[in-house]
């Protein structure tokens, strides 16, 4: 059983807390993504699971076994590093074989297992090259092969795709997804890229400033965010966040009344709220048809859709429509927000109001 458990784990350097009293339970064979901006503590958390950093307090368990005092090599884990950490003086074959060699696997067994791992990542022709003669994508696959050659209990991946160019990143995402499905190993994956999180994860832990803000499936995180931070971190283009106040069940901005809130959302009068609505949940129509009439500020055709930006007082709102929309700057249009996908947040705490 290769579950991973964190219980009240803290990592502090003097007064600075990289990870602040966090608990987390990862199920066996789950693909968990730690998502957040740089400095949020996601990499520190993973390094503590690996044993490369010691927690200041708290317990880390792999399976039922407390591993705080164990060295990385005794935890039966494998790791893919952000810059791959390949051994430059060894060939690809040597790199992949190293975990087996250093643990005393019989040399007769090493060869076939290296070949098997290389085949899984399609590296069989490159086994005799040195890392410096490989491209970025190839090096990344060597790092993967080295991790899977041993069938450990837990895989750890530290932003493995961040050094690849955009196109390669997309194709490697699919590769990773397929590989993890086939291998069925508990995986902890660290990234700042929300698309990677959405596409690869069974569950996502969104982190900021050393704390997990929300833990849930990608759908939950996307459709039911717990705070402004989570809501605006996931989704591209980001969720529109409009400041205003509630009176008589109507949401008002500084420009005036915006819309009547549908049932299901909090209705008390409040002074400081933020209304959230995603670009794809706003539709554009002729003036008078929707919730509010506005003037077009900018139009961007991304090929698969059209993003229309409008200005509301000091705020900008982006609406995403299908690619055949034809509006021009300074046109008058109307916006209609889908009532099923509106969110209200408290302005000072950022918490979601239910």
């Amino acid at each position, binding site marked *: 059983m290769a579950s991973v458990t964190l219980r009240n784990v803290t990592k502090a350097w003097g007064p600075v807390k990289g990870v602040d009293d966090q608990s987390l339970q990862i199920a066996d064979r789950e693909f968990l993504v730690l998502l957040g901006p740089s400095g949020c503590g996601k990499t520190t958390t993973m390094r503590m699971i690996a044993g490369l950093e010691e927690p200041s307090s708290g317990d880390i368990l792999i399976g039922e076994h407390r591993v705080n005092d164990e060295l990385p*090599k005794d935890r039966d884990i494998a790791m893919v590093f952000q810059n*791959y*950490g390949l*051994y430059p003086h060894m060939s690809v074959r040597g790199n992949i074989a190293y975990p087996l060699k250093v643990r005393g696997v019989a040399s007769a067994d090493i060869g076939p297992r290296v070949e098997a791992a290389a085949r899984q990542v399609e590296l069989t022709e490159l086994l005799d090259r040195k890392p410096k003669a490989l491209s970025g994508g190839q090096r990344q696959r060597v790092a993967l092969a*080295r991790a899977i050659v041993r069938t450990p209990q837990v895989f750890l991946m530290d932003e493995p795709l961040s050094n690849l160019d955009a196109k390669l990143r997309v194709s490697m995402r699919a590769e990773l997804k397929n590989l993890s499905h086939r291998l069925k190993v508990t995986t902890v994956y660290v990234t700042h890229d929300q698309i990677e999180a959405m596409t690869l994860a069974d569950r996502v832990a969104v982190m900021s400033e050393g704390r997990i803000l929300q833990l849930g499936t990608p759908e939950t995180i996307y459709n039911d965010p717990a705070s402004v931070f989570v809501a605006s971190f996931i989704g591209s283009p980001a969720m529109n966040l409009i400041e205003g106040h509630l009176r008589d069940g109507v949401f008002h901005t500084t420009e005036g009344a915006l819309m009547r809130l549908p049932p299901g959302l909090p209705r008390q009068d409040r002074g400081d709220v933020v209304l959230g609505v995603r670009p794809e949940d706003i539709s554009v129509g002729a003036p008078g048809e929707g919730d509010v009439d506005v003037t077009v500020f900018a139009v961007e055709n991304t090929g698969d859709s059209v993003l229309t930006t409008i200005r509301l007082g000091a705020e900008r709102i982006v609406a995403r429509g299908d690619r055949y929309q034809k509006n021009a700057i300074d046109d008058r249009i109307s916006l209609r927000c889908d009532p099923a996908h509106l969110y209200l947040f408290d302005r000072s705490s950022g918490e979601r109001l239910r």
Partner: protein
Amino acid sequence: MRDRTLKYLLVAPAVLVVGATAVWPLAESLRLSLYAGRLSRPDFPQAFVGSSHYAWAFTEEPAFWNSVAVTAAFTVITVVLTTLFALAFALLLAPGGKFRSGVQSLLILPFAMSPALIGVSFRFMFNPEFGLFDAMFTGILPAAASINWLADPGAAFWVVVVADVWGWIPFLTLVLIGGLASVPRETLEAAQVDGASGWRVFRDVTLPQLLPVLAVVIILKAIFSLKTFDLVFMLTNGGPGNATQTLSHYVYFNGFKYAEFGYASAVAWLMVIPMMVLTYFYARFVFDRK
């Protein structure tokens, strides 16, 4: 003025200085070695003798071979010892942190002592009457205290070795710390995760990546050891007898005590040959990194 002319003008003074102060004397030294040149005689230089100085050094002069042996032994031993100690200390100091950085800064101090100064200091400390080491040995290792270090040929050689190694460890340690810093931390962590213990991480991952810097260190120290003069002059002046007479000191002795300029130049030029070989290898490291 066009760049084309300017660039040669900018380089010219330096080239002239190097040419006049290094290249020309080198050539002149070679010329001197071909003449019988006893400086004390008024008719300097005397007859052209071709390569007879060289032949004589190799066949008739045991003192020459003594210097060669002393220099060779000294070079090999000091290179090995200094490198090993420097590597050990670099590994201790590399991890960083306030304590270690502070110690690293202190390493500059011994390095700012010139070899001549080191020679004097060690002569002071190994003095049989009031030397620091004599006192320390009497307390800890009485057998060692009974040796008159600077008067015994075998012992004196080792004193010179110890002084030289002591003097060069700080510099080589700093170089190796820089080399260790350039080994990517991820390769070490990957090895730890892969299953390697501390020793195996060092042997399989750190050391192979450190080899280029290690080679630079070894070549540099070899060159400095071959050239050693100041330390020997101040510590033992080649003695007792000629037990610690390195080639540089032998040249100095013949040139300025016996005034045999021709012969001294010949021996000096013989020293140039291993220098050129080492310089070739060193240059490879300097230029390959461009």
